[in-house]
């Protein structure tokens, strides 16, 4: 129900958001404390490896929230959000490469190793400025944001929606993957960017930095979640649901549907970029594989499993699937793709509302139940003809 609070203050009054933030804060705190206070070898000690792994999950969760924002609330199934994630990651990776300075294998203070290897004489123009962290962090937002802006502007203006949009977002990330594989692009080609040393002057390999990155990921997820809740709880959020369910009606009410779509798409792309930027220093590498269509579509299944148009469902889905992936690929790597493939089929056929839908059935918040129910009919049932019109 609309109320008179400002859109950013509103989420704090929502029960579901309060619970989410509390759980997130407590988990991050608990893991940090278990890592720092308990000695190694203690059964409850959380190793650095696990902390980093969890940090990675949190980045994925933020990416899932970004996808849920456009898919759940706007009805746009992006199969190319991995591209925004990777662009954010590359922006961060470029900064980390410049941080290496002359400690690379070739000892060139200016050029990253791979450029020296390719016999490049000077830094390409698009690498300028990445030695300044502030600029690099700005690019983490701007690079994916700009791509989303241009792509979205073209697509939404000509009213490309539905499966068509999904297919061309997939083509977009595929084209980017091919491009980044090329050495000539100046992003390290096949190998990508790696061998990072420092971030903001701190050694990336130290425990303290790992913990800090983990906490930063938790904070980013919390803030991203708040931002998205703020948007979806505002009148703009209701407008985006309106665009999702009855585009023509919305237009005849005097709203510029394509601008709503563009705004939310760009916000979502930027969130994905932030997730990518936090992901890269934790895993220590960024390569064109992150652009692969498979990854982007995998993100969608996280959201589908968790439950669309709930935001917390996206987080849940990302954590569950990635934990399962870690376990599966550890004990029986062959079975993982079977499991993932099966998940795609089972979730779409048997669990269209996701896990959040199960909660809702037990009366866990009337509001989310009904909106999840509608999501199914809304973003799925649009016939092809309408989607293209």
């Amino acid at each position, binding site marked *: *129900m*609309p*109320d*008179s*609070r*400002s*859109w950013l203050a509103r989420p704090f009054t929502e029960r579901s958001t309060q619970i989410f933030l509390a759980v997130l804060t407590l988990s991050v705190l608990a893991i940090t404390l278990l890592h720092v206070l308990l000695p190694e070898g203690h059964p409850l000690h959380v190793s650095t490896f696990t902390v980093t792994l969890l940090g990675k999950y949190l980045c994925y969760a933020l990416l899932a929230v970004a996808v849920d924002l456009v898919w759940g609330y706007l009805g746009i199934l992006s199969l190319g959000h991995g591209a925004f994630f990777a662009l954010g990651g590359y922006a961060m990776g470029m900064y980390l490469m410049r941080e290496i300075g002359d400690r690379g294998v070739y000892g060139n203070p200016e050029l990253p190793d791979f450029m020296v290897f390719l016999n490049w004489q000077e830094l390409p123009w698009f690498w300028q400025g990445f030695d300044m962290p502030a600029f690099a962090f700005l690019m983490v937002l701007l690079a994916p944001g700009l791509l989303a802006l241009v792509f979205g502007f073209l697509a939404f203006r000509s009213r490309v929606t539905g499966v068509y949009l999904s297919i061309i977002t997939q083509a977009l990330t595929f084209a980017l993957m091919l491009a980044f594989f090329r050495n000539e692009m100046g992003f390290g080609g096949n190998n990508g960017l790696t061998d990072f040393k420092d971030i903001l002057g701190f050694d990336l390999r130290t425990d303290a930095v790992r913990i800090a990155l983990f906490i930063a990921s938790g904070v980013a997820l919390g803030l991203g979640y708040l931002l998205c809740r703020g*948007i979806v709880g*505002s*009148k*703009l959020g*209701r*407008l985006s*649901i*309106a665009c*999702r*369910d*009855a585009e*023509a*009606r*919305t*237009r*005849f*009410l*005097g*709203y*510029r*549907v394509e*601008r*709503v779509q563009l*705004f939310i798409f760009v916000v979502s792309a930027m969130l994905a970029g932030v997730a990518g930027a936090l992901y890269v220093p934790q895993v220590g590498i960024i390569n064109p594989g992150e652009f692969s269509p498979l990854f982007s579509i995998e993100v969608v299944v996280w959201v589908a499993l968790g439950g669309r148009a709930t935001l917390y469902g996206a987080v849940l889905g990302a954590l569950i699937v990635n934990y399962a992936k870690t376990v599966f690929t550890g004990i029986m790597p062959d079975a993982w793709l079977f499991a993932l493939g099966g998940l795609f089929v089972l979730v779409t056929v048997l669990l269209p509302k996701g896990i959040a839908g199960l909660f809702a059935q037990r009366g866990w918040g009337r509001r989310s139940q*009904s*909106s999840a129910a*509608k*999501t199914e*009919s*809304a973003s799925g049932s649009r016939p092809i003809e309408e989607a293209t019109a």
Partner: protein
Amino acid sequence: MSLLKEMATRDRVFDFLTPRTSPVDVTHGPILYLEDVSVSFDGFKAINDLNLTIDDGELRCIIGPNGAGKTTMMDIITGKTRPDSGSVWFGSRHDLLRMSEPEIATLGIGRKFQKPTVFEALSVFENLELAMATDKRIFPTLAARMSGETRARIEEVLETIHLKEWHAREAGILSHGQKQWLEIGMLLMQKPRLLLVDEPVAGMTEQEMERTAELLTSLAGRQSVVVVEHDMGFVRSIARKVTVLHQGAVLAEGSMDAVSSDPKVVEVYLGESDG
């Protein structure tokens, strides 16, 4: 008639609650003006040299057999379909063919679809909130807060469309007739100068129909209303002037009695019923 027109003009000038009502210039007569409009789909002429004029404050009913081009005409007026030729003017200042759907809507043309279209996942209240005439750009919408005034306006409309006790329910669970009402309510929230209403009473009970007729006639005068309807009883109950469309062009125009005794119209309808 001229008095009516003046009242409408005054209403526009002095109504401070709707500052965004567009400066539609109706001093030269009609509010909507279609001239020689034609459109064809794949060789089929849906609209064929259509000429139509709606006066300011008028209530006009448009009837015609299936495929006569009624819905296509509405599509053209609201900017959804671009005609192959002809011109469409709103007042004497606005060329509708050069405007997008949202621009046309903002200018003051509201439309109710043939199939009632409401935002099913949103509550009745929220449906009306979205429809309200206000700054519809992105950031104002994001930062919009519910003011007492807005709430009062929404409640007023809820009263009018008899959905007050339903205001917190999702629009998806409403009956067909209630959705029709909600959509009309959304039109009212828009404060349009011209309402295009496509089959407003389909799926309504006799009583609901009566209320709708009442509502539409009460709107006329302040706003211009164009009603497309199949239900002849309903048309007869509200119509002052009726236009008959046939094969994308105007077949006859006049009072209900005059039109229904027109041999051309009789032939079309009888022919239709035969086929």
